[in-house]
């Protein structure tokens, strides 16, 4: 009887240990993410053109306490007239496992080239916003953000 109990206890402990080991092993995305070079990604969007660094303003908190939800506002200086408007805005986060965060498509009737959303950030990094203007022109802006608790790391497992 006592032996049975002992065997059971051992098995339970072994199973629990295995589960914990599995949980503690971070997946590829949860390991420290170095900043990736997003230039190829940028060039793919711009079809080889080099974007000019002007007219894109990114509003992010200087310190984000929680990388799971960081409010972000992007404003592009544009008259938003039928002849000169912002066609699309791309957000890139170089330390995220998937650097292209989102793409927003605007048009000449948008009235204002401004988009607000909440993003996930895997650590302190430089966030870039690329805007595609009418007439195949591209402008880019960047903003540094300090993230104290990165997204992608699940706190419940630490």
């Amino acid at each position, binding site marked *: 009887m006592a032996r049975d109990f002992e065997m059971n206890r051992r098995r339970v402990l072994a199973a629990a240990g295995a*589960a914990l*080991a*599995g*949980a503690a*092993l971070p*997946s*590829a*995305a*949860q390991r420290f993410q170095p900043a990736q070079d997003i230039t190829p990604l940028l060039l793919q969007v711009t079809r080889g053109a080099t974007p000019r660094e002007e007219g894109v303003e990114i509003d992010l908190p200087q310190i984000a306490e929680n990388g*799971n*939800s*960081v409010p972000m506002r992007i404003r592009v200086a544009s008259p*938003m007239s039928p002849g000169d408007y912002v066609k699309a805005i791309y*957000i890139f*986060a170089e330390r*995220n*496992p*998937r*650097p*292209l*965060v*989102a*793409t*927003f*498509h*605007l*048009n000449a*009737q*948008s*009235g*204002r*080239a*401004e*988009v*607000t*959303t*909440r*993003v*996930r*950030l895997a650590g302190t990094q430089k966030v870039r916003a690329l805007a595609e203007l009418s007439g195949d022109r591209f402008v880019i802006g960047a903003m540094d953000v300090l993230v104290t608790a990165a997204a*992608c790391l*699940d706190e*419940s*497992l630490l």
Partner: protein
Amino acid sequence: MMLGKVQVPPTVKRGEAFEVRVLVQHPMETGFRRNLDGQSIPANIVDKLACRLGGREIFSAELGTGISANPYIVFFTTADASGELVVEWSDDRGEKGRVTTMVTVV
């Protein structure tokens, strides 16, 4: 059918930009997280969202894993006439959602 919300000002001026706020209820699971047994949680992302006003597309977005759970998007548009504003989205499992509101031009 997924839950969501869209908010516009009660009245808007003809041709003047107004704010449209969209909130979608969705976990936006990245696929990078693991549960307590160490198994990875499958990804589940709202990847497409589009907004039409009176049949004309005024805004669309492709979202990725970098967008927070319960995606919240604010953008601007103009209107020439009153009409119904429709927001539609779908996730990578083919689940769809739709909310509408009226835009009143004065």
